[in-house]
């Protein structure tokens, strides 16, 4: 019997129920699909060295990945069904956010809006910081995209706790989901406590004015309220990080507002966009603009004394400073932008 015939005999003799494929990487880029011998490698790749350790839990290659995915999914479902997950006092359900919501939002982030996040090293890996961003686009998609950016692309995979308006948390279904993904109502005390506990807190001070602004005023920041976010940062003594979000204005370009209908439905605005309500339910689809989220240099407020919180001049001055910084970041990025959708 030649060398080759003997090897072939070896291969045929092994138990069929434990059949495995060789799975060595090929120069062409795939994996070897030959039957593996007792060493775990096929006769081509087996150069007589020690066999790889037998892996009981996972099979090789694709089969292993599938098994792992199914195992994780089953464990997740079991945790869900028996209530075996923890939530924090604000209602943040980390298990749900990282295992269900994030994978659902990721295609929107990667493929639809093709978000590019820059300046992530300005966001600390630990400790609290207040992220202040511009708000636009009728629906708070910018809040979701910022959350995904920090969870997916930041090296520390940080969860962003967002301060939402009354309306978002009051709605059935959406309200509960917003709370479970880490958002809470914009109360000063809660925000200060979150920052002191070392959480990243995201705030959109333009509020409904920003998100409901018409397309003609795109990227022109509305007034930043009364500067409440500055008081929060001063009280918690945590840095303010200005964030500029490009692309959100073009998702639902607002050309009009039906104010009587908004009043009737108790909404802050009832927008008329390029898509809505003309295309009916299809009008709820955002336009696929290309997004850019830039995290700017942190503004340190720890140098101010504790009673600075009560100084309205300082609060307004800092608020204007942050607003100007975000506006400059927006203009700079807009100038560098070649196309809205591509």
């Amino acid at each position, binding site marked *: 019997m030649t060398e080759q015939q003997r090897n072939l005999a070896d291969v045929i003799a092994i138990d069929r129920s434990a059949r495995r494929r060789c799975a060595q990487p090929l120069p062409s880029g795939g994996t070897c699909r030959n039957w593996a011998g007792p060493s775990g490698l096929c006769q081509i790749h087996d150069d007589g060295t020690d066999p790889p350790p037998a892996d009981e839990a996972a099979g090789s290659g694709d089969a292993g990945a599938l098994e792992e995915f199914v195992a994780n999914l089953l464990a997740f479902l079991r945790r869900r*069904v028996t*209530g075996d997950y923890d*939530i924090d006092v604000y209602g943040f359900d980390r298990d749900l956010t990282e295992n269900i919501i994030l994978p659902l939002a990721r295609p929107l982030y990667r493929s639809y809006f093709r978000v590019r996040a820059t300046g992530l090293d300005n966001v600390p890996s630990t400790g609290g910081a207040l992220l202040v961003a511009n708000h636009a686009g009728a629906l708070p998609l910018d809040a979701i995209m910022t959350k995904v950016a920090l969870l997916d692309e930041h090296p520390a995979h940080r969860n962003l706790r967002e301060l939402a308006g*009354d309306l978002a948390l009051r709605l059935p279904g959406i309200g509960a989901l917003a709370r479970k993904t880490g958002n809470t109502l914009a109360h000063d005390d809660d925000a200060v406590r979150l920052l002191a506990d070392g959480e990243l807190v995201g705030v959109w001070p333009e509020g409904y004015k920003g998100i409901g602004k018409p397309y003609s005023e795109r990227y022109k920041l509305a007034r930043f309220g009364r500067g409440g976010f500055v008081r929060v940062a001063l009280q918690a003594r945590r840095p303010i990080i200005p964030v500029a979000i490009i692309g959100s204005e073009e998702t639902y370009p607002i050309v009009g507002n039906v104010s009587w209908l908004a009043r009737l439905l108790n909404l802050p605005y009832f927008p008329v966009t390029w898509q809505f309500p003309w295309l009916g339910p299809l009008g709820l689809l955002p336009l696929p603009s290309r997004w850019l989220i830039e995290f700017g240099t942190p503004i340190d407020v720890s140098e101010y004394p504790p009673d600075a919180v009560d100084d309205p001049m300082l609060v307004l001055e800092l608020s204007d400073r942050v607003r100007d910084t975000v506006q400059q970041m927006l203009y700079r990025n807009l100038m560098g932008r070649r196309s809205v959708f591509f």
Partner: protein
Amino acid sequence: MPDGWRVLVTGISGVLAARLARSLSEHDGVDEVIGVDARLPVHDLGRTRIVRSELTSPVIPEVLDRERIDTLVHLAINSARDDTGPQGRARIRELNVIGSMQLLAAAQRSPHLRTVILKSTTAVYGSEPGNRALFSEEVTTTESKAGYAKDMIEVEGYARAFSRRREGVVLTVLRFANLLGSGIDSAFARYLALPVIPTVLGYDPRIQFCHTDDAVEVLRQACLDTRPGIYNVAGPGVLYLSQVARIAGRPTAPVPLPLVEGLAGVFRRVRHMDVQADQLQYLSYGRVADITRLRERFGYEPRYTTRETLRAFLDEQGIRPLVGESSWLRLEERARELTRRIAAGDDR
């Protein structure tokens, strides 16, 4: 030799008061424990003497004076009674509010009194959708329109007025989260015992529990030490109502918002469960109280978390889940085995 404590506990027919009374009567430094209630207690009370009386009766100030009571623990506060309907609600209000008012009026004229402890509830913070996530004790309470929360806001008001007039008396107000434990008969405990738990569709409130062991211990320490002020008392940790139902292994029946009032009416008639507007609000938005002051100023660390409290309550009540955790684990194992075999079979 200084006199020992002479304690009067109201609401002695309830399990919390009974356990407190027994625990105090076994303490060496306590000379006398007297329990007051309109109904006769059924629990073991140790050396406690019982006075059967309504709080509105003139017997109360007489007892306070004659027995030289120096510590008054007002636990005759309840969120639920057996009788329901508009008469039932009025009766609960009468017992809670009028009873407290009369008791505090009697206490005001009692010269021997040194400490007053009031059982209150975190329900005073309300469950508005615009509420903050975490309530600490300085937050002024809500302007609740009806129900148990409104009663307790009034009672706390009377207690504060009492404290202003009798400045030498230490007032301790303990705001308890939902109490759960053996023998506790509260609105929420009855709700959890239902075979199918009705919820409001689209809403998932945050729930907090307080174990009766912790409650009794806090009350005991408030009696025996000086602890002026208001304290939130609850177990650490928070659960969603959906989680509570899943841990209990009970199915939920989400009811759309427009139908909630109607269903509450049905419950009132059929199941004799009085569901008030503030309780429905609680089942939509929930509320969480901060226990930092309990930990740091009162100096008490709860022994049971919210989850452990629920677990203990379920075990005690014998509420078994429809499908046990071991069954889920076995199902998971079988499914994993199946995928393993399918994956290996793919290679064939």
